[in-house]
């Protein structure tokens, strides 16, 4: 009789202990410690991308590439900031708010890099920047390298006015800059952008 009572008591205790001991509940955070936990979590998170666009040096170096493997090797070293989206395209891992012409805000990658995989192509590398501040920064970099405006024309690839810049320091390099609402060469993440994109195309001849 005693054994039976002990067994029933043990069962009840087991039930009570297991009822109080939920694994999920044990992993709960004190509301007062939420700040600390979130900071700790952020510190342990893998390092994020550090930049949003390729620099002027990067673009000029890429424009000298003669084949696709040269570009792939170059971009592999920048895989923390850019990921391979699809053939001929890399996208910035750094994302943020971009405002369109109607004032609506979108979250999107800050830039997209396009490259030509054809050895005989007339161009090699182009970058679309989705934010004016970043575009101005990149343009300033080119200006500091002595790039000046030499020509402007209507460009079929962007269906907009394109500005050609050259620099005496880089004799065989030309920058084609074009603010546009059209996807460059009908490529890109967004086929019908409602915001102004800034295309930087660099040619090496």
């Amino acid at each position, binding site marked *: 009789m005693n054994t039976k009572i002990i067994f029933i008591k043990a069962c009840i205790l087991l*039930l*009570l202990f*297991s*009822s*109080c001991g*939920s*694994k*999920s*509940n044990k*992993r*709960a*955070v*004190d*509301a007062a410690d*939420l*700040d600390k*936990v*979130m900071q700790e*979590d952020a510190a342990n998170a893998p390092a994020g991308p550090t930049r949003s666009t390729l620099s002027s040096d990067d673009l000029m170096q890429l424009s000298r590439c003669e084949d696709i493997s040269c570009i792939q090797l170059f971009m592999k070293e920048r895989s923390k900031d850019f990921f391979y989206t699809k053939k001929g395209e890399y996208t910035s891992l750094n*994302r943020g708010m971009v405002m369109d012409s109607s004032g609506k805000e979108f*979250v*999107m*990658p800050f830039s997209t890099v396009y490259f030509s995989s054809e050895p005989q192509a007339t161009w090699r590398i182009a970058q679309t920047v989705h934010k004016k501040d970043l575009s101005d920064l990149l343009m300033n970099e080119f200006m500091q390298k002595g790039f000046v405006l030499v020509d402007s024309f209507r460009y079929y690839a962007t269906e907009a006015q394109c500005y050609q810049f050259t620099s005496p320091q880089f004799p065989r390099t030309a920058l084609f800059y074009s603010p546009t609402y059209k996807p460059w060469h009908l490529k890109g*993440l967004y086929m019908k952008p409602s915001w102004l994109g800034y295309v930087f195309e660099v040619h090496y001849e």
Partner: protein
Amino acid sequence: MRLLYIFILVVAVSLFLFLRTCVDKKVEKVTGKDVVREGEEMLGTWASKSSNGYVQFRLKRDGTLEYMQIQFPANDTIKVKGDFSITSSTSRNMNYFPRLYGFRENGDTLFNYYIRSVTPYNSTVSKYDNLILSDNSLFDTVEYKFYRIKQ
């Protein structure tokens, strides 16, 4: 004879789970805290904080919801009571399901998010339980991370 032992084991486990559920419900009633078990990881109180404010919501076993939002720096507090529901895919497009819906008492939608992930019950990886919500499962989508809060 072996079949009998298997049968006894099945009965014992079922009885244990049944009694545990009964006791869990009683504990929940007495303490007012949700006892989360396998397959019920969504239940409980979740919160997230940013420089703009603090958001906390509690998903109860009976399908009701308690939502609280504090806006900084004035500490303006909004408290809402309502219901919640979790919906799995109704179409082929898995990018938008499963979703967590919160409703006010009058039936208006309070929030509607894709459930990106929730810490599994037996997880040994996470130190803290978290729930990640976003608009959809596409790569280029902002996500909101909530932590399980002690009740």
